[in-house]
């Protein structure tokens, strides 16, 4: 079953067509990666799926519902959770609070300022520690997020997305800017998640992509130029050309 579907999605920034008629299907329960050279339009495609960027034309369907006109928060409430390429956290709140806010959004995103039942709060707390455990940040729960190292902030970035318990988890280059040591840690985390979540992944570390993905889509100059299982993509001449240039 396709959990997410885009139809001829096109995004323009002035004269630049960042995403060009992209039609994509993400199957539930799989890891689907999007690769491509820098500037291929991968993050713009992400932003268009989550609602941060409006498409010039085309539609986005989530669980067979047309969500093209919905706002960012409405899509998040439907179950789309994402992490960002550039670390995007709540710097002056604690690590615990960062993830707590995500978990709380799942159960009550309304702006009504009433009290929350006690058992609900303890469930939330358990959920937060569960997520922090998954990414290995449980012992830093009380730190201010700004005090974490870059690598730990990247892990927190993923933890916030997990806190939402999303139906579709979108990870935008989770290993960006990580040291080899931190990259290995992050890869371990993502491999763990791959079994339990439907994941849409943007990543430059090709060996990670090849290892975890069921399907890979390749973008180049805003267009989808290839799609298929990892083995097929590796052999695809169009992909080799996009990455290595014409010989």
């Amino acid at each position: 079953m396709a959990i997410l579907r885009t139809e001829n999605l096109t995004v323009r920034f002035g004269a630049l067509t960042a995403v060009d008629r992209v039609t994509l299907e993400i199957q539930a329960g799989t890891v689907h990666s999007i690769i491509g050279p820098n500037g291929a339009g991968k993050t713009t495609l992400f932003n268009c799926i989550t609602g941060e960027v409006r498409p010039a034309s085309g539609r986005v369907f989530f669980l067979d519902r047309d969500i093209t006109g919905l706002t960012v928060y409405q899509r998040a409430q439907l179950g789309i959770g994402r992490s960002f390429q550039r670390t995007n956290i709540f710097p002056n709140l604690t690590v615990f609070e960062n993830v707590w806010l995500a978990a709380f959004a799942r159960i009550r995103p309304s702006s009504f300022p009433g009290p929350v039942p006690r058992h609900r709060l303890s469930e939330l707390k358990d959920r937060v520690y569960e997520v922090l455990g998954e990414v290995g940040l449980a012992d830093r729960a009380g730190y201010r997020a700004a005090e974490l190292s870059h690598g730990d902030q990247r892990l927190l970035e993923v933890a916030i997305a997990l806190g939402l318990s999303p139906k579709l988890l979108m990870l935008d280059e989770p290993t960006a800017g990580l040291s080899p040591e931190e990259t290995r840690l992050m890869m371990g985390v993502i491999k763990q998640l791959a079994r339990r979540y439907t994941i849409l992944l943007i990543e430059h570390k090709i060996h990670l992509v090849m290892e975890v993905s069921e399907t890979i889509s390749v973008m180049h100059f805003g267009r989808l130029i290839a799609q298929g299982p990892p083995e097929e993509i590796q052999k695809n001449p169009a992909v080799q050309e996009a990455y290595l240039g014409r010989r």
Partner: protein
Amino acid sequence: MARFRQRLAGLIPWAALLVAILVLPDLTRPTVATEVWVFAILALAFNLLLGYTGLLSFGQATFFGTGAYTAGLLLIHQRAHPLAALAVAALAGGLVAAVIGYLCIRRIGLYFIMLTFAFNLMAYFIVYQASSITGGVDGLPGVPRPPVDLYVLAWDIRPGIAYYLFVGLIFLLCAMTLKKVVDSPFGLVLQAIRENEARAAALGYNTAAFKRVAFIISGAFSGLAGALYGMLFGIVPIDTIYWVTSGNVVFMTLIGGTTSFFGPIVGAIFFIWLAETVSVRWERWPLIVGLVFVFVIFFFRGGFVEVWHRAYGLLVRLSQRGQPKYGHSKD
């Protein structure tokens, strides 16, 4: 045990406030002392927006004035129960804030600030023009202070000191309520919006709706403070809705410190003390306010509260001098 100690530490500021409320009338005139707590309520309400939600409202006097005139008119014409007058004033403040907030929150940053300011000016001119109801530029005189009738007993709040205690009590109730609000899940979402609004939206929070609710709460408490102000002087001066009052609230809150809940209270105490004691001797007293403000902005961005934290840190460091150090200590 750690939890118990944490609780105890949380009570210290409240104990200090209680002492301050009891001691203040011995240090100054009851009117000045009362004014301190009125403005402390206003500053706390304002800081819900600035310190917690990251919204600089430059029109807090709109709601302060709305409350003052609403309660004044009710007390004059309807001989209303003082508590009823306060409740309706809070309601009116919240209602006006709902409308103005709805319109202002569509814009962000500088445009938001200018809109709150523009609405403040509009509110001022409405009150100025409607002089048959509001008294115009002369203010609304003759606001009575009827006894607080609680069926079993009637509390006469006409004497200055009785009214002082009445206001002190209401201030404590307001402060405790607002503390509950900022410590609640709702309050944490507000802080998340302050920290990173785009991320809060990506989590599924309708950030505009949260900001609107914060605006309404802030407006309601500001209206309540306004009502207390009118009852204090027996007149609602048009200054209550003038933009300078909005500016003063920004001043006292920034001077006191926006990063802690109690900072604005300290700022209000300082500001009113300065305004009421120095102004008698030296009419250019705002110059001092300006100098203090510049000093705070340059050296203590966290306000007076940061001065306290730094002094405390210095004391700790001095007391540890000579002892072997392991690892790095945090400043």
